[in-house]
């Protein structure tokens, strides 16, 4: 498998991480090596194997639809980068 610098930049864009051309070039070398290692998986035939997503074969637990938390927004917002009138502030999204 061959990655290109533009692939790396596209992946970084999907991951919302700003990356310069130089950083992308450096990352390309390292990622290519890692994907060569990952590629060794293809040597084993797994056509009849069920994927294993989890270590324990247990069903998702359900709970009663009850309020269990108290309102702590002041505490939680006290550590936020920017808050105004109990709202988290972000740059304007809609003109």
């Amino acid at each position, binding site marked *: 498998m061959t990655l290109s610098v533009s*692939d*790396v930049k596209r*992946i*970084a864009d*999907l*991951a*919302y*991480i*700003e*990356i310069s051309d130089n950083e992308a070039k450096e*990352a390309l070398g*390292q*990622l290519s*090596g*890692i*994907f060569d*290692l*990952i*590629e*060794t*998986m*293809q040597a*084993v035939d*797994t056509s009849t*194997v*069920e*994927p*294993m*997503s*989890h*270590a*324990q074969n*247990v069903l*998702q*637990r359900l*709970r009663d639809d009850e309020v269990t938390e108290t309102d*702590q927004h002041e*505490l*939680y917002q*006290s*550590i*936020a*980068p*920017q808050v105004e009138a109990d709202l*988290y502030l*972000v*740059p*304007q*999204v809609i003109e």
Partner: protein
Amino acid sequence: MFNASLKQLSTQLAEKKFSSTELTTQFLQRIKQLNPEYNAFITVNEEMSLAQAKAADKMIAAGQAGPLTGIPIAQKDIFCAKGWLTTCGSRMLSNFISPYDAGVIERFNQAGAINIGKTNMDEFAMGSSNETSYYGMVKNPWDIAAVPGGSSGGAACAVAARLAPAATGTDTGGSIRQPAALCGISGIKPTYGLVSRYGMIAFASSLDQGGPMAKSAEDLALLLNVMTGFDPRDSTSLQRDAENYSQDLQKPLAGLRIGLPKEYFAEGMSQDVANAIEKTLIEYRKLGAQTVEVSLPNAPLSIPVYYVLAPAEASSNLSRFDGVRYGYRASSYSDLADMYRKTRAQGFGAEVKRRILIGTYVLSHGYYDAYYIKAQKLRRLIAQDFIAAYKQCDIIMGPTAPTVAFNLGEKSGDPIQMYLSDIYTSAANLTGMPAMSIPIGFGDKNRPIGLHIMGNYFKEAQMLNIAHQYQLVTDWHLKSPV
């Protein structure tokens, strides 16, 4: 006092030889003295630790003490602790004072243990050398030119250098066991689902598991008794009856069948490690155990499988760090998307970004089946290998790491060489089975070597028994570098 076992400390506290306040003060002073050299702790808060010690002294005086009441425990900086800076080794959380306690922290608080400080770690637990921490590298107390291992490198260093009687760690691919081996201490990753992940900052949720790190198996058992238990706030926490992990420690080992996977003894293990393992197996045969060769044909694929699944889960988990609700936010940006991109570019270090990129790629359209599903299928084959092996043996042994601790800087520029440090450990995370490391001697440059003891699901008590019996007839676990 610094070399005492948890049981000895508890007895001395009960007999009023010293108070928890005195004990805590002693450890805080030792941290102040030695931590500048080792960098094992990111945060020490004397006021908060001593307030807990004072409360513990009251519990002891009132006759309400449990086995860990009044005993200082170093907490890995991945566990949220209310009022404590909780950084996960990252710039992204360099200003995060946790507003709540993790399930594990709550359990230690209820037991009356003292939080003696938050230990250094690889950023978001991604690393095997503790060199990716935003707070600087940790030194191996046996040789300050060497890495302590990672990601729980600060915890391993703290226990080895006797800066704390015991510590917590987390293990996603070997992050408790590999640093335990490299620093000459004991550590166990329990069966997935036994220790609450609530408030334990997520790396790869289907693999992450908290566990204790300490001087001996006997200490690990006491810590596991406190750390394990159902937590409804963790959707993968297991509902099962409480177990006493200390109860089987004294059982004789006669008849024990130790499986030696031929794949783990094939190549890659250095000679000093091979020699130490051989000597240890002789000791176990003297204790009445027999060894049998077993095969784990798919185990060598653990590393490629792990480096698909762990980054995939990490890329999803770490998407929450966006500079909106908590943590770091870039100081200048043009719009919302630019704020996300700059915040994440500046807040995450190189290794974390690398893994997010790998994970994003393997989950992206067109590659999901070839990488992610393929890795999950191999995960099942690896688990089936272990289940089959446990029909022929009770326990599996091998090296925890292929070599003794490497030098600081030796592998930091080569991610693949770094990833291969976890070649023996990551399978237990993929299967969810318990595994531990205990010290068994010294190799090149007089650096410690660890024995990897792997068991089937829920075999912790038996594994601790096996480790304890060895520690009764050897003294590697009592050795300290300072």
